């Protein structure tokens, strides 16, 4: 039946069966085969939206009239802007933009209505947080059409003559932090967090499972060395590696991609240290759950996928549905992205950074607690 020299269907089928049997036992690989496509389908299908709507917008209105109310309601109807509040002055507006509480501030100057009626063509100022041009680009484009849309509906009766000519008011858009709307301003700093997540989690995950897989962990534990010394001792080199990576990316950002660095360098490294720690803790936890290096690698992939897609790195955070934003808000990368853009592009310092710092710390503490709980098991 089976000829030794030719291709034997029997032997070939035997090989297929063996491969299938092994695959069936490897639960994690199986979970990946099924889980990753489903997760990707859901994330790309439902969570990711490259045309984000309903972005938080604040208003400074020094002039309130029928016309300004119409302008604001027109903005709302465009669905791009979700008016979350009214701010008293420029200063509070700047702060709200810097902290990322709002992405737009619409500033209607005093005497706007009067000037408009006189046909002086006053201007509305729209300040946009342009750090992520992809998120705000379409909204800015829509706002530019604002003047035309308002005029068509509202200027009737004695004012109708104004509608015929050029639009009765102007819209000035300020793209803050990234006036030219360059995507690399957003991508390059964002990449720092992505690269750190990938390497830190994977490397620590592998570093500890490798000791276990090769049997050297047992030898270590038989020596007079404390587990905490083993763990922390293993991690420190990776913190150094993380800082080398950060420095490389920063240098490239500055000298190759000409990304401006507005904020404080030491603040940036401090934020990075927090973030590196969060990732190392994830790596340790994965390595105490994983039985082999292969599993640690697969688990890192699992962790990496939502980080990549839901952190606001690849796709606008504001464009995601609420449930996806909840998941995104748990991930340290989301907050690190905000931190790093805040520091590098906006020059944020101090308390402006706090809203993005505490979630990273909280995440680290919770994951560390899990790691400690599971670490006991690795001894027995």
């Amino acid at each position: 039946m089976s000829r030794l020299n030719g291709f034997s269907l029997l032997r070939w089928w035997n090989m297929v069966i063996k491969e299938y049997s092994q695959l069936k036992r490897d639960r994690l690989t199986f979970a990946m085969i099924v889980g990753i496509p489903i997760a990707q389908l859901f994330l790309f299908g439902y969570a990711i939206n490259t045309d984000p709507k309903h972005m938080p917008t604040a208003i400074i209105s020094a002039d309130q009239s029928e016309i300004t109310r119409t302008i604001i309601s027109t903005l709302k109807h465009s669905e791009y802007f979700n008016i979350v509040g009214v701010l008293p002055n420029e200063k509070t507006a700047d702060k709200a933009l810097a902290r990322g509480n709002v992405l737009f501030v619409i500033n209607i100057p005093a005497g706007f209505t009067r000037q408009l009626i006189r046909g002086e063509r006053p201007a509305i100022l729209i300040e946009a947080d342009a750090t992520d041009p992809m998120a705000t680009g379409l909204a800015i484009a829509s706002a530019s059409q604002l003047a035309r849309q308002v005029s068509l509906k509202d200027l009737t009766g004695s004012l109708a003559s104004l509608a015929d000519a050029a639009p009765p008011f102007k819209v000035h858009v300020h793209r803050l932090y990234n006036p030219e709307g360059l995507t690399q301003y957003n991508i390059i700093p964002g990449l720092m967090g992505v690269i750190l997540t990938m390497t830190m989690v994977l490397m620590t995950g592998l570093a500890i499972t490798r000791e276990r897989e090769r049997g050297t962990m047992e030898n270590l534990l038989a020596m007079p060395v404390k587990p905490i010394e083993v763990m922390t001792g293993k991690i420190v080199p990776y913190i150094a590696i993380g800082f080398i990576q950060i420095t490389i990316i920063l240098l490239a950002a500055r000298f190759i991609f000409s990304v401006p660095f507005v904020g404080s360098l030491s603040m940036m490294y401090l934020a990075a240290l927090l973030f590196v720690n969060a990732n190392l803790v994830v790596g340790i936890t994965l390595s105490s759950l994983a039985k082999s290096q292969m599993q640690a690698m697969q688990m890192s992939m699992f962790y990496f996928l939502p980080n990549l897609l839901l952190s606001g790195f690849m796709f606008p955070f504001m464009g995601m549905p609420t449930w996806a934003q909840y998941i995104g808000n748990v991930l340290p990368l989301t907050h690190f992205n905000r931190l790093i853009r805040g520091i590098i592009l906006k020059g944020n310092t101090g308390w402006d950074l706090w809203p993005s710092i505490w979630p990273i710390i909280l995440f680290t503490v919770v994951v560390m607690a899990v790691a400690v709980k599971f670490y006991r098991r690795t001894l027995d």
Partner: protein
Amino acid sequence: MNSGYAIDVKGLNKSFGAKHVVNDVSLQVGRGEIHGFLGPNGSGKTTTIRIMCGLLKPDSGSGTCLGYDIIRETDQIKRHIGYMTQKFSFWEDLTIRENLDFVARMYGLADRRTAVDQTLENLGLTKRSNQLAGTLSGGWKQRVALAACMLHDPQVLLLDEPTAGVDPGARRDFWEELHRLSTLGISVLVSTHYMDEVERCHKLAYIAEGKLLTRGTASEVIAAQGLQTWAVYGENLAEFSKTLQNLPGIGQTVMFGVMLHVSGKDGNMLESSLRKVIAGKPFRMEHVETGVEDVFIYMMKHDAAHSGEKR
């Protein structure tokens, strides 16, 4: 130290889930003694050794290693014993010297450089000290591992199947080294599957399915089973052994190359059964001394027959 023993443990128990891996094991190893630790694969040898060196906590039981409590004083134990794992557990991607340096630092050796240099010289590896440990052959790996375990001058050595997969020459050298260490007063507990090594031990302990079945010197262990053994010579012994299986008095048959060992507890019945079968056939039989191997195989079967389920 209270007991004169290097290792003295009583009533050790350890379960992993539903599996009772170590079941009420008590064991004493005297100073300067080489104590063999035997038993089939999965019988609980490694787990017992790990408990003794403080890597695992027993569920119940107590004991001391060099006078230190195996539950509370594991740090002290780790400082004073050498433990060699079953698998080569040094860093294959470090050089021999780096491995030794690492171990020496871990134990905080005062004169690390001299200690490492001396060890390399004793091993005859001074010239190859910058070779990666992973490139060593099995026999060399095992010698380096032993040397690394000995760097901090431990008083007790716990060796978990140190000679598995090592060639006979290297095994002989290894055992000579163990005997040299034992004359220096170092106590050795060594697990093994090799019967020739069993006979090199001062004392033996045999464990099966977590239970310690017998202890003592080789002759004590043999005597305790009270087996009589006959050797049968001839052609087609394997075929012949099948005809013996259910005869009265015949406990077991074991092939040893050109001869078949037939053992049983009742010497007279064994002899008469054998003579009846052999009569008129081209076989020759003679009474021989029962060896440890006969005894261990007997115990293994005996034990398996008693416990309901085998792995």
